[in-house]
C-alpha cells in the first residue's frame, strides 16, 4: 500500500522537476500532499533526496565546458538595477587591475567591479580584487563580504578565503573569515566550494540558495538553513544585526565587530537568550534594552561597556 504512496510521491517529484516548479502553489499537488500525512512524509523524503543530489554538480570540472552556458536573466536584471541604485551612493568603480579595499571598525563599503559584479564589504574587512578579461579573482584577506556576481560562464568568479576556494558563475552570497573559520551563506543561485590548494573534485561541494557552509582547515559542514535564515545572516548589509534567541555572549561578540567600544558580558548572564533587530553601530540602543527590558546592570568606562546580572 505504501509502495503506491512512494510511487506517487516520486511521480510528483519528477513532474514538478520537469515543470521547473519549486515551492510554488499547484492545486493538484497541494490537494495530494494535503490528503494524508503518509503522502506528505513520502514526498518530503524524496524531494529532499532530489535536492541533496544537486551536490552532484560538484563532480563537474571547475572550468566551464564549451556548451555549459546558462542564462541568468533574473540576476542580470537585479544587478543592473542595483548598480543604478549604488551609483547614487557614489561607490568606487574598480578599474580592471588588482585593487585593495579595507574597512575600519563599523564601516561598510560598496564596490562595483568592472565586470558588473558588486561587492559589499562589512566591518573590519580587507579584500583584493583582480578583474580583467582573463580572470575574475578576489582574495578575502579578513572579515566578511557579500557578493552579487555578474553572469559570465566563460570567466568563473573565484574567491579565495583562507583554505577555501569558492567558484561561481552568477549568484548572490556572502563569505566570512574569522580566524581559521570560513563561512559561506548563499542567498541565490549556486556556488562551488573547494580547497584553495588543489582543485580535486573529491573535495568540492556545491552550496545552493538557503545553504550555509562552515569550514575549518579541511573539515567542512554544509547545512540547509533556508533562505530566511540566510537572509538574516546577511542582514548586516542593511547595517542591522538580527538575533533570534542568540546568547547574550554571541550577540555581544557581533556588536563588538562593529564598534570600538567593546561589550564585556559577565559570565552569569552570558548564556541568556535574546532576540531582536538592532543598528550595528548603536550599542547604546542595545544596552538600553538590557537595562530596562531585562533589569541588567550596565557600567561604562571610556572604552568598555560592562554588562552584569541585576542585583
Amino acid at each position, binding site marked *: 500500500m505504501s509502495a503506491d504512496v512512494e510511487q506517487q510521491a516520486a511521480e510528483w517529484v519528477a513532474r514538478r522537476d520537469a515543470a*521547473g516548479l519549486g515551492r510554488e502553489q499547484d492545486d493538484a499537488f497541494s490537494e495530494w500532499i494535503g490528503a494524508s500525512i503518509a503522502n506528505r512524509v513520502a514526498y518530503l523524503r524524496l524531494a529532499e533526496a532530489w535536492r541533496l543530489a544537486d551536490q552532484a554538480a560538484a*563532480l563537474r570540472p571547475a572550468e566551464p565546458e564549451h556548451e555549459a552556458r546558462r542564462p541568468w536573466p533574473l540576476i542580470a536584471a537585479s544587478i543592473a538595477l542595483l548598480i543604478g541604485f549604488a551609483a547614487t551612493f557614489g561607490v568606487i568603480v574598480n578599474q580592471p587591475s588588482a585593487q585593495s579595499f579595507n574597512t575600519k571598525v563599523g564601516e561598510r563599503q560598496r564596490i562595483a567591479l568592472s565586470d558588473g559584479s558588486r561587492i559589499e564589504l562589512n566591518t573590519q574587512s580587507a579584500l583584493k580584487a583582480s578583474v580583467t578579461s582573463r580572470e575574475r579573482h578576489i582574495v578575502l584577506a579578513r572579515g566578511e563580504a557579500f557578493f552579487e556576481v555578474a553572469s559570465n560562464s566563460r570567466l568563473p568568479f573565484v574567491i579565495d578565503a583562507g583554505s577555501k576556494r569558492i567558484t561561481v558563475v552568477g549568484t548572490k552570497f556572502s563569505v566570512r573569515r574569522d580566524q581559521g573559520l570560513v563561512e559561506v551563506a548563499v542567498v541565490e543561485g549556486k556556488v562551488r566550494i573547494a580547497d584553495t590548494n588543489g582543485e580535486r573534485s573529491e573535495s568540492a561541494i556545491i552550496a545552493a540558495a538557503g545553504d550555509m557552509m562552515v569550514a575549518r582547515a579541511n573539515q567542512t559542514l554544509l547545512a540547509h538553513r533556508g533562505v530566511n535564515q540566510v537572509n538574516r545572516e546577511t542582514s548586516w548589509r542593511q547595517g542591522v544585526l538580527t538575533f533570534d534567541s542568540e546568547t547574550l555572549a554571541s550577540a555581544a561578540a557581533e556588536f563588538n565587530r562593529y564598534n570600538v567600544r567593546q561589550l564585556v558580558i559577565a559570565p552569569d548572564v552570558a548564556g541568556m537568550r535574546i532576540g531582536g533587530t538592532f543598528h550595528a553601530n548603536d550599542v547604546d540602543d542595545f544596552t538600553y534594552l538590557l537595562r530596562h527590558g531585562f533589569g541588567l546592570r550596565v557600567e561604562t568606562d571610556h572604552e568598555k561597556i560592562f554588562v552584569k546580572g541585576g542585583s
Partner: protein
Amino acid sequence: MSEEVDRWFLAEVLPLEAALVRFLKRHWRDPHEIADLRQEVYARCYSAALNARPLQTKPFVFATARNLLIDKARRRRIVSLDLVADFEGLNVTEQDLSAEARLEARDQLRQLRRAIASLPPRCREVIMLRKIEGLPQRAIAERMGIAEGTVETQVCKGVKMLAERIFGEDRQAAARADSYHEHANER
C-alpha cells in the same frame, strides 16, 4: 501540517533512516515489508510532532518503531508467531541510538557519486545529465533522443533509488559525528 514540522522531519528524522532500517530488519522477518514499516514510522512520528515536538528525536523515533512492530505482531498473531524475530527482546539498544546519522560534506559527495554510479544505465544517464550537467528534462529528452515522458519516468525511478542510497542502509558508515558537532557549535 506545518513548515516547522517539515523542517524538523528533514533535519532530525530523515538522517536516522539508516539506523532505523537496520533496527526494523533485525526485528522483522519479512524484508518486503521494511519500506512500508519505515514509512509508517515516519507518518506516526510526523503526526505526533504536529501536537508536540519530542525533546529528543532519536529515542522517540525508535520507541515509535518498537511500538509499531509490537502492534503489527499482535494483530497478526493468528497468522504467524514468527513475524517478529525476537518479540521479548525487542529493545532499542545503545548501538541503535549511537549509530551516527550525519556525514561530512565531502563524504556525502563521495556517497552520492556511488549512489549515481549504481543506478541502471539509462536511469543513470538521465540523472547525470540532470544533476551533474544541470540540463532541464526537456533538453535531456532531446540529447538522448527519447520522449520527455520517458525522461520523467526515469527521474521518478531514479529519485526513489537515490533516496534509498542517500538516507537508507546502503550508504557507507562513513559518518564523522564528532567533526559535525564541533562545527555546529563553532559560533
